[in-house]
């Protein structure tokens, strides 16, 4: 039983696995929000998750649902295969920005264009966390990474990709939003968006994605608190928060 004075408890959607994420990393926050939403929608039993390659490669250890682990970037294709043969299940991918916006750009765009009834949780931390902080397609101009050591030079290394804006142009998309995980208020808003992204799938309204601006204190070389400030001061202006596409039926939902 949960004691009455408990302030924070493990959501039912979680297994009892200690976290492997670095202190202050917001991957853990994103995980928790997904677990809470699946529990609140009472769909843990029929959910199949698809883990990416990236720091969240072990996502499958944390959720009390069936899980598969995809090759780098291919989670949306794997999820398509699962959902097409089990259309009454809830299928979601959880992907980083290297996974989704670099190597997996083809898979994500076409899953969205086909209007696959999938939910995608997209964690944008502006770098390749797992491999030690290299430049990602989402790295901010001028941002230093281990493979853009003088700061990302857009002349030679290109411009950041805005996934939420891009995917929102596709007709197969039912819900597409960007949120941030840098403070309590934004975390609550993020949870609502994640709920809507799963509701979109539950109602068969097409592809749904929530992009979450996230921290990587370890590779950014910042304290957890400064990382949250960095998200607020630098990431949010470059990646504006908001709903980029929301179908009429989803707008009606009150949570």
């Amino acid at each position, binding site marked *: 039983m949960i004691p009455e004075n408990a302030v924070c408890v493990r959501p039912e959607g979680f297994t009892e696995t200690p976290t492997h994420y670095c202190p202050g990393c917001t991957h853990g926050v994103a995980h928790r929000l997904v677990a809470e939403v699946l529990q609140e929608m009472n769909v843990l039993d029929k959910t199949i998750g698809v883990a990416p390659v990236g720091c969240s490669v072990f996502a499958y250890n944390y959720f009390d649902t069936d899980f598969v682990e*995809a090759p780098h970037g291919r989670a949306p294709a*794997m999820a398509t295969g*699962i959902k*097409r043969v089990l259309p009454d299940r809830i299928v979601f991918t959880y992907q980083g920005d290297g996974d989704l916006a670099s190597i997996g750009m083809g898979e994500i765009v*076409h899953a969205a264009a086909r209007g696959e009834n999938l939910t995608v949780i997209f964690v944008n931390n502006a770098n390749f966390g797992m491999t030690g902080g290299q430049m990602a397609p989402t790295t901010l101009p001028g941002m230093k990474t281990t493979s853009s050591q003088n700061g990302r030079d857009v002349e030679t290394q290109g411009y950041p990709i805005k996934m939420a804006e891009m995917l929102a142009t596709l007709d197969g998309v039912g819900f597409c939003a960007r949120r941030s995980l840098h403070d309590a208020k934004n975390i609550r808003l993020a949870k609502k968006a994640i709920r809507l992204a799963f509701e979109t799938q539950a109602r068969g309204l097409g592809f749904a994605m929530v992009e979450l601006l996230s921290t990587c204190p370890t590779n950014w070389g910042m304290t957890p608190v400064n990382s949250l400030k960095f998200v607020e001061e630098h990431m949010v202006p470059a990646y504006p928060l908001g709903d980029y596409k929301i179908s009429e039926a989803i707008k009606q939902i009150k949570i």
Partner: protein
Amino acid sequence: MPKELWKGNEAIAEAAVRAGLEAYFGYPITPQTEILEYLSRRMPELGRAFVQAESELGAINMVYGAACTGVRVMSSSSSPGVSLMMEGISYIAGTEVPAVLVNVMRGGPGLGNIAPAQADYNQAVHGGGHGDYQPIVLAPASVQEAIDLMVLSFDLAEKYRSVCMMILDGCVGQMMEPAQMPEMRPVHRENWDWATNGKMGKRERRILSSIYIEPAEEEKMNLRLLNRWQTIQANEVRYKEYFLDDAEIVIVGFGTAGRVALSAVREARAEGIKVGLLRPVTVSPFPSEVIEQLAGRVDAFLVTEMNSGQMLEDVRLAVKGRVPVEFYGRLGGMVPFPDEILNEIHRMAKSKMAVNANPRDAWLARMATA
């Protein structure tokens, strides 16, 4: 079922449907596109899944996802597309889920051409994807055999939780022949104890992954695959033999090359030459044992392939230098005529190569002087 006239690729597609195929994912590429086109019509008609993927990368990972749920799933492609699938094939092998693939091989390397070839033998039989794994590889030589092996592919893939690939070429894929379809099997969802299809209130959660982060665990997994492979080798070798009883010369050829060789063997027999044919049906597992036994009683082997001598090396391994192994190949999408192989039989009936000579060098030298 009566015999009907079937085009190879369409026959393969219908045979898969009748074997209980629940999902097909593919991308167009000649000379296998009829499989995709046929299924784009047939699968939805039966309420089954069909997706034309954005690429072969997409297709193989859709196969991977569906395979994890335990349903019968397949993809088909041709050489360049199969190269793209290699990442996914390795993951499927590493996750130990069953998946069925068809490669209607074409001339290569690179974009090559769309003519019949067997140059992907090594890629199919000896890996292709990264890591230690061995797929089951079947090689039909006729439309009927392609139908039969297609059905068998699903059974083998499931039995061994393995990748099962059928390799053929545009000759078999594009040719029309009278053939008999199997009865329609009802779609049957096996209650696998490994499938990730949702807990559904019935069980603990399941995870399917190719990750074994502890090397000791990965080694165990590799050994598990190897043990399974030994069982496959012991139980699943299939081949066809023709005129082997009193043969002095044995031709070894798979698929179309084997079929062309059979015409040459029949002509040579009519002339009184004691020649026979061994046509591997499973090129992986390879019929090494029967070749080894033959090596104890025949005078010489001739390997014929539509490549530069890839299976040749597997035959040489089995023969272990006991008798000469000669080679005749056509490359780049060229198909040998029976006459060409008959010439080789005539030559060998007169004088055989030395045991220690290099068959590929000898063949190239003959080509240069021809």
